[in-house]
């Protein structure tokens, strides 16, 4: 009986016979390569830096009231996001938390790309009053006051700065000259400001070294592509017929590949995908992100970049203020997308089925906000929508070593 049913299903749902051009594209989507090097972070491959960064990542003491760590929003068991529509640190945030899967492969960071290195991205929430709400001086004090951190930091970066006589909390607060953190920051001599900021930057570089290890590259889709490459039907069976049909739609009729291209299923850039926005609808996305990036003293063009700013000056210098017009947001990776609901920059959709339905019908879509004309009604059937969801679910691989799911026993490596 079971054999009969299995044969019946197999007969009714054969795998897809991909055309040569389709095969060529599918082979481009796997395997996931190692993330490109970040020349602005000389410590990104240093295991001791990664160990320190892992400890810092999970440490809620790096927040104003000791309640928020990086892992508050980037929960390992929730595929390095938080399952919430909008992020929540010390206060409610205005955008959905992005996953950290394969995060080091990104070219820009945050939905609006207001950061251009992973280490600088890691620092922003620490000093954001709505997230960790702390200050760079308080963070460096935390390191100096913890023997384990002090040892770990010293072994990787050298001595911590002398903090004697400095206030407990201090940071630059752009645009708020009377802010208590800014007033406290003003009391530091320039060379001490520099030393504190440099240690703070090193915290970011350590966290980035840890986050570089959050890699997903063993999904059923990868096994399918491996089988396709080798001409091995058994490997190709890693994708159900429905998921194979979904893959065909993904790279073809459904136009997903326009933006979700490459092994990480992102073009690393920014688009207007016309998702419904709230009543305010005022999030300018990339347009403001570029302005903030240019004004950021911790961007990759400056002295805190380990390549002296060479990479950043070219990268940031070439940015166009308003390339397409409109409200553009970064294309997120689709690796583990089935585990990172809800979706879009404001968590507009609760499920993948809702996402696919939106792109199929454009129900509730925002008007095109700029010159880009990517999003059109696809008119997918219910079966096609289900196939696309099946394909997206085949991008799931959360097989990270369990020791990366929490703080290490010590922030340093015993030698």
């Amino acid at each position, binding site marked *: 009986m079971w054999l009969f049913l299995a044969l019946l299903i197999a007969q009714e749902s054969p795998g897809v016979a991909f055309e040569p051009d389709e095969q*060529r594209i599918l082979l481009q989507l796997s395997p996931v390569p190692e993330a490109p090097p970040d020349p602005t972070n000389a410590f990104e491959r240093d295991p001791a830096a990664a160990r320190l960064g892992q400890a810092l990542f999970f440490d809620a003491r790096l927040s104003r009231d000791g309640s928020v760590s990086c892992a508050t929003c980037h929960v390992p068991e929730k595929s390095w996001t938080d399952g919430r529509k909008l992020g929540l640190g010390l206060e409610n945030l205005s955008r959905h938390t992005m996953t950290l899967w394969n995060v080091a492969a990104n070219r820009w960071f945050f939905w609006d790309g207001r950061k251009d290195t992973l280490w600088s991205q890691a620092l922003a929430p620490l000093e954001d009053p709505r997230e960790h709400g702390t200050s760079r001086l308080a963070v460096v004090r935390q390191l100096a006051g913890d023997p384990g951190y002090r040892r770990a930091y010293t072994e990787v970066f050298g001595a911590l700065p002398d903090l004697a006589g400095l206030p407990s909390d201090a940071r630059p607060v752009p645009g708020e000259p009377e802010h208590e953190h800014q007033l406290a920051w003003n009391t530091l001599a320039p060379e001490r400001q520099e030393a504190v900021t440099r240690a703070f930057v090193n915290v970011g570089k350590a966290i980035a070294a840890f986050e570089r290890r959050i890699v997903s590259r063993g999904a059923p889709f990868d096994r399918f592509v491996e089988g396709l490459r080798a001409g091995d039907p058994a490997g190709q069976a890693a994708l159900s017929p429905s998921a194979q049909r979904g893959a065909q739609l993904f790279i073809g009729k459904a136009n997903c*590949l*326009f*933006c979700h*291209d*490459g092994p990480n299923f992102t*073009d*690393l*850039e*920014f688009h207007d995908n016309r998702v419904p926005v709230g009543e305010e609808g005022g999030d300018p996305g990339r347009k403001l992100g570029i302005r903030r990036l240019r004004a950021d003293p911790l961007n990759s063009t400056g002295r805190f970049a380990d390549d002296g700013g060479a990479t950043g000056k*070219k990268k940031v210098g*070439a*940015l*166009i203020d308003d*390339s*397409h017009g409109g409200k553009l947001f970064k294309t997120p990776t689709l690796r583990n997308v089935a585990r990172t609901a809800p979706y879009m920059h404001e968590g507009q959709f609760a499920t993948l089925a809702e996402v696919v339905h939106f792109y199929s019908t454009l129900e509730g879509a925002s008007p095109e906000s*700029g*010159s*880009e*004309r*990517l999003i059109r009604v696809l008119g997918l059937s219910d079966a096609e929508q289900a196939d696309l969801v099946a394909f997206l679910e085949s991008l799931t691989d959360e097989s990270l070593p369990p020791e990366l799911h929490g703080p290490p026993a010590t922030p340093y490596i015993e030698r």
Partner: protein
Amino acid sequence: MIRGTMLRRISLPVALAALFLVPLFGPGALCSCGGPAAPAGEPARAPTESPTGSPAATPTDATPTPAAEAPVALPDFSTPDWTRTPSATGAFVVAWRPTPAPIPRNEEFTLELWLLFDGQPRHVSQLGVSGWMPDHGHGMLRSVRAEARPDGSYHVDNLLLHMRGHWLLIFDVLEGSLAERAEHGLEVR
């Protein structure tokens, strides 16, 4: 990767209209190169594709004058690594080759580029280089930089075609009263 090449041509009612198209395509290089013209070298090969589009305005006083510098051996533009793109009216030919080749998808590349007027290399007052996806309604996300080199060529960098599909590489030239465009269509795969 880029598959093949497809020559495309635009027809401008008047050459000066190109002046207004440059800002339309925003993300491009605009190299003001009013310096000395390039040295004249061995005559470059004439373009194999002659203009067949709308009647072209004949450049008059816009035709640049060759410089009398020490002769420079020009590359052999007939080899497969070079692409020659005639301008809309045939006033000039853009000979260019990318590095790396073929042009990669969503990775930076550069061009070595020569502007050939009657087979002779020139530097012009302004050279704009940009990319455009007509089907998507957008161009590149970064500004391109074109640098005039002493040998008469240009080095163009910061180029990146971030999406697969049909792109136009656009070369806008301003020289005297000449305002003319050359376009080259390519498929990013």
